[in-house]
């Protein structure tokens, strides 16, 4: 099945607007694959980007031709009711010198008492000099008591001088998430991770990063900003391994409110004398002088806190 007509329900339609900036009039511009409740609900290829179903397991292969410039491919996945446990394997093959954006939002909606879960296993294979901006937004919706769970696993393999930027956002509504990301970098490759998470209520979010810096002059920059409110809990684990002359930086910055809890365990493993690795971590409530400053501009205390958090997670 190379292409099929779009056919998705209203819950998906609403979620697409949030997770992948879907315009209900013009649709997606470029190649896309819409996954709804473990089925394909729409697909289109472009001249340079092809999407095909896997034959041995659920999921798709996304192939970007070498040298493709400036294209965007959308691969949203939605779970629209409870009692769905979606498991999908998506592999991205990015040709040499290509420069593309991948938008991979995920929404889970629960209206019943059973769990709604999406588990996306992604592998990225970046050829030499390839450049990818990967944008991912996660949301949970619906009033059901069933848990909304998203457990993404991402493994990236970066060949010489390739570049992967992962921009991931999860703001409220996802009850449980465990995100595992690993990357292996060759000579001159770079990975940049910008993660933003906000949890509230009884939500729990765990993120694990493991980056192996194996090639000369490769580098990693992993920055996580998080806000834990209500009775929610978050954990951030990162391991950066420097096995060559390389640069690695990770930062975990967390704001606590109410009874929120955050654990941060950053690890740096250096196995080369020229591996320059740095970690920063800061956890605390919103600084009083920040609230005071915004109040002096006419905001109430509550408005000030919202603004500060909104900016922090922007």
């Amino acid at each position, binding site marked *: 099945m190379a292409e099929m007509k779009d056919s998705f329900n209203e819950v998906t339609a609403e979620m697409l607007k949030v997770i992948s900036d879907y315009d209900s009039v013009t649709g997606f511009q470029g190649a896309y694959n819409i996954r709804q409740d473990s089925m394909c609900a729409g697909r289109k290829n472009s001249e340079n980007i092809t999407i095909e179903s896997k034959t041995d397991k659920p999921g798709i292969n996304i192939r970007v031709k070498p040298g493709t410039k400036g294209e965007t491919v959308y691969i949203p996945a939605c779970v629209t009711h409870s009692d769905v446990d979606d498991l999908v394997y998506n592999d991205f093959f990015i040709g040499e010198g290509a420069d593309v954006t991948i938008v991979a939002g995920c929404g889970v909606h629960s209206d019943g008492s059973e769990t709604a879960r999406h588990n996306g296993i992604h592998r990225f294979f970046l050829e030499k000099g390839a450049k990818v901006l990967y944008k991912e937004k996660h949301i949970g919706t619906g009033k059901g008591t069933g848990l909304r769970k998203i457990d993404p696993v991402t493994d990236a393999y970066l060949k010489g001088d390739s570049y992967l930027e992962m921009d991931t956002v999860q703001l409220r509504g996802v009850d449980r998430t465990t995100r595992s990301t690993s990357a292996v970098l060759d000579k001159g490759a770079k990975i940049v991770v910008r993660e933003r998470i906000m949890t509230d209520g009884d939500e729990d979010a765990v993120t694990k990063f493991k980056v192996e810096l194996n090639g000369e002059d490769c580098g990693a920059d992993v920055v996580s900003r998080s806000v834990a409110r209500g009775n929610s809990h978050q954990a951030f684990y990162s391991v950066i391994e420097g096995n060559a002359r390389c640069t690695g930086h990770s930062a975990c910055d967390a704001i606590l409110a109410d009874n929120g809890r955050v654990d941060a365990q950053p690890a740096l493993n250096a196995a080369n004398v020229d591996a320059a690795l740095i970690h920063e971590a800061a956890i605390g409530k919103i600084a009083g002088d920040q609230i005071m400053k915004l*109040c*002096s*501009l006419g905001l*109430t*205390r509550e408005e000030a806190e919202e603004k*500060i958090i909104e*900016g922090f997670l922007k």
Partner: protein
Amino acid sequence: MLELQNLVWELPGGGSIINGVSCKLGSRLTVITGPNGGGKTSLAKLIAGVEKPTSGRILLDGEDITDLDITGRARLGVAYAFQQPVRFKGLTVRDLLELAAGKKLTADEQCGLLAKVGLCAEEYIDREMSAALSGGEAKRIEIATVLARGAKLSVFDEPEAGIDLWSFARLVETFEDIRSNTSGSLVIISHQERILSIADEIVVVADGKVRTAGPREEILPRLLKGEFTARCPAAFDVHGKAGECNG
């Protein structure tokens, strides 16, 4: 017109910082000066609502604002430039200026505001107001957020601190410009002769009290003379005729 009536501010553990200040700040540009530790910054914080006085009243255009919090005073038209600019991870210069102005700003408006503090909007408008900015840059942006408010009363706590000489000259021009082109009044806490020299009125605060107050023409020469005889302007009423500020 801002009126302070017998303002007292004591620390919770005892010891008083402001010991009964009564004063009318009615001119377009009032400079509060005096020795370090004399209570100038505390007075500014009491006016802005950052701190609450132990006793005494604060009136803005005849309205008692003593019990209003910082937000309430801001909404009535009090603006306050912090001596130490507050840093934010994530909020940009644009965010702060637009919050201050209470509206979206056009490119021309952004440019106009930042030019007044010697910054180029194109270069700064989308920068985070974070620790990545230098002390001087942050200070200028702090001042710009107060200018953006177009407030009835703007209080600047040592605006010159951390600003280089060239930008400082520009800043003095900016204060003069505000005085002549807007209807709001300015209260500036400063030690700088250049700023004192553009004041309409000068209030000297020392030991938590108003030592003297009056028109610049009257106060400034004595302050300068005092510098020669005793470095501390608080002492100058020994040498000159002390003015009383009775409110």
